[in-house]
């Protein structure tokens, strides 16, 4: 047996008796560590982005500035594809996939790859957000810290959650949003065991960002007065944001499809997409980058644009985002959603003003806030995240009532048209989306190998019925696999029902061989098959049990009766 030296015991904290009994304290301590690290990652990206855009600021007015997003997209793509060899994509689905399929296992390089690639994309002017890349880095940091300390899967998933929470809390200075987003999108499970370390990590991430960047609220604003009129108008706004959410989702998917159909090297596609964004940006610089600068203006209420221009901006930002993300750029959907949301809010405000010029009680800043919340809730289909994010990044609790209404209605309406959120649609369509304690989760955990019952007695094809009757006497099962006596190959099955008519006819005992009674070539299950597929086959053929083979050998039986037993245990153990 391997001997572990005392010196190394700190590498295996879960072995300490103190933590073995209850790992909650261990998770809280490590969660705080993960939160600090992912908070640092988010601060680094934030500072990197502002530094890069400061440098490029002087070039913005030059005629060739539209090449910048193209160059950024190419560099970012080449970095992801060639240097770190990770596929494109914005990050959040990858985290959810790893949590639901591999117990939160992530590569170490994921903890910085998206930071650099999104820094290149967004810093150069691509229309994308830094949040999803930071979330992925945070998750990878959590996963690797868990691996460093040899934690098990459940603990690792908790630390991955801590990483995302810390990262999001750090980048927005919004601890509650970090928690809610993690639980709503990443974990899908509100159990106290996970919530506590995630909350601690949120605090750690937010605190790190406050220490390094100052405690500032992202979008400060004047106080809004919320009255009955705004509540009713917010319902109308929710409908518009839902429509825009659906439009954005469809545009993103369509742009990705179009890019997939063009036979060009990927880096050229990234360049083309980036340059097109740059061209739009020449006309309307509002669409470039993460765009938080313009949100601030809109929330303050001093954004100089009429109804036509704002509508144009909504469309332009949607197109720019689709071009950036669909054609190979790297970044998240969060920030573009906020920008499009505030444009949408403004658009609604301008239309209402045009219809009822006398209404003075509604404020355009307030509508911008509500629009952001509506878009986030619609695209992510996560109403809680939409509500808390806006409350926290604007520091305005007084808007909470219309916020909840907009979030709820926008989520519901978008769900009617797009049943899966933008983050999860690919996972759901490929069947890789599994939440804890769901049917899919349990079935994917259980394997045929675990369910197979091996207490069947194998008989030979040339055995006489008389000898077989003796075998039946000793067996307590109804199924008997038949094998070839020379090769051991599985050739058929006999069910007790098959011999019942001959059981009391001693004349046949010496005259009939099992080969004549058995059901040849029965439906079999391979030991490596997925349980969900096997169950589908059983349901289709109305079978309650099936023989399991490995190669051409019989291994055992798999039956629904045993499955129910194991299924229940699995559900109980998971909770």
């Amino acid at each position: 047996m391997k001997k572990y030296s005392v010196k190394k015991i700190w590498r295996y904290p879960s072995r300490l008796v103190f933590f073995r009994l209850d790992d909650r304290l261990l998770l809280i301590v490590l969660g705080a560590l993960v939160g600090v690290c992912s908070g640092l990652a988010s601060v680094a990206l934030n500072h990197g982005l502002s530094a890069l855009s400061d440098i490029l600021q002087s070039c913005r007015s030059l005629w060739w500035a539209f090449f910048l997003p193209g160059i950024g997209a190419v560099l970012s793509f080449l970095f992801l594809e060639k240097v770190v060899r990770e596929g494109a994509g914005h990050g959040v689905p990858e985290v959810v996939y790893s949590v639901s399929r591999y117990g939160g296992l992530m590569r170490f390089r994921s903890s910085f790859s998206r930071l650099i690639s999104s820094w290149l994309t967004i810093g150069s002017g691509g229309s994308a957000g830094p949040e999803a890349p930071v979330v992925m880095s945070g998750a990878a940091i959590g996963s690797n810290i868990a691996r460093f300390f040899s934690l098990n899967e459940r603990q690792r998933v908790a630390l991955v959650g801590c990483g995302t929470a810390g990262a999001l809390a750090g980048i927005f200075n919004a601890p509650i949003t970090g928690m809610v987003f993690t639980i709503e999108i990443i974990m899908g499970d509100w159990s106290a065991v996970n919530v506590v370390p995630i909350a601690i990590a949120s605090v750690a991430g937010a605190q790190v960002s406050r220490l390094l960047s100052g405690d500032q609220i992202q979008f400060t604003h004047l106080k809004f007065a919320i009255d009955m009129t705004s509540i009713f108008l917010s319902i109308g706004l929710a409908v518009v944001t839902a429509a825009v959410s659906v439009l954005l989702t469809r545009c993103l998917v369509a742009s990705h499809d179009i890019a997939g159909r063009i036979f060009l090297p990927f880096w050229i596609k990234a360049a083309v997409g980036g340059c097109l964004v740059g061209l739009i940006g020449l006309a309307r610089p509002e669409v470039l980058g993460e765009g938080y600068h313009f949100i601030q203006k809109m929330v303050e209420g001093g954004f100089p644009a009429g109804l036509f221009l704002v509508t144009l901006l909504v469309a332009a930002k949607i197109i720019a985002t689709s071009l950036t993300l669909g054609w190979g750029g790297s970044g998240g959907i969060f920030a573009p959603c906020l920008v499009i949301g505030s444009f949408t809010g403004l658009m609604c405000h301008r239309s209402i003003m045009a219809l009822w010029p006398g209404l003075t009680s509604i404020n355009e800043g307030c509508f911008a806030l509500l629009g952001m919340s509506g878009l986030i809730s619609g695209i992510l289909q996560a109403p809680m995240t939409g509500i808390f994010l806006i409350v926290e990044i604007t520091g305005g609790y007084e808007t909470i009532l219309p916020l909840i209404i907009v979030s709820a209605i926008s989520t519901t309406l978008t769900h009617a048209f797009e049943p899966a959120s933008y983050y999860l649609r690919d996972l759901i369509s490929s069947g890789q989306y599994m939440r804890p304690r769901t049917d899919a989760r349990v079935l994917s955990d259980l394997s045929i190998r675990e369910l197979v019952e091996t207490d069947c007695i194998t008989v030979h094809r040339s055995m006489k019925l008389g000898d077989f009757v003796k075998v039946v006497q000793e067996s307590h099962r109804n199924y008997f696999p038949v094998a070839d006596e020379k090769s051991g190959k599985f050739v058929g099955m006999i069910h007790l029902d098959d011999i019942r008519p001959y059981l009391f006819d001693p004349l046949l005992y010496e005259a009939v061989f099992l080969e004549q009674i058995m059901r040849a070539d029965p439906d079999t299950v391979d030991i490596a098959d997925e349980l969900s597929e096997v169950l589908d086959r059983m349901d289709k053929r109305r079978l309650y049990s099936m023989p399991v083979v490995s190669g051409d050998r019989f291994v055992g039986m798999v039956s629904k009766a045993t499955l129910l037993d194991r299924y229940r245990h699995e559900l109980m153990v998971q909770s």
Partner: protein
Amino acid sequence: MLLSINELSRYLSMPPDTLRRWIRQGRMPVKWKGDKCIFSTRMIKSWAADNHLKFTLPGDTKADNDDLLSSSLVTAMETGGVHYGLSGDTVAGVLHEAVARIGDIIGESAKPALIKSLLEREEMMSTGIGHGVAVPHPRKPLAGIDAPPLIATCFLQTPVDFDAIDHKPVHVMFLLVAPDSRSHLYLLSRTSYCIRDVEFRGLLASVPDKKMFIEKVGEIETLFGKSHA
């Protein structure tokens, strides 16, 4: 406590593959230490109880009933004893006599109930199974008898008409009393297996002494065990 995964799997009656996965996923309070599983017995017991699983260490279990049964035809016959020269001309007469002979084993108070039950059984259908042998037994296990399963072998002084299936008068009775149906059926099936043996029937006709008789029964029982194992 330190156990291998296979031992742990046996004590929890779950497949080792499932347990390996649960440990990896952190669903049970067990850790790997090299290739062994390390855990606290108290914790795993409470975990198992929470999840409707059973965790039984070998020391916790009582001896299984199967072991008790495996060699019990001889044991039951030794308990019941071999009795010679039972007098009586009627079924009721010989049954009274037989019950009187095992009175000290089953207890005096249980005798009337046993006789009543035996007679009831004979009224329903004779227990004379042919070849001059009868296997009288109560229809249901009797409540009041606190004795191990027993078979009293009774050689009759004069053959008695039991209304047997082959109408031959009975000269040997195996009085069977068992505390539960399982051992009752078990003993009945083994006794009838013995009686089917021609050699054994010849031995019965010669009224052998106790030692020789029990030896023969043991011999046949081993044969029976072999053909059914």
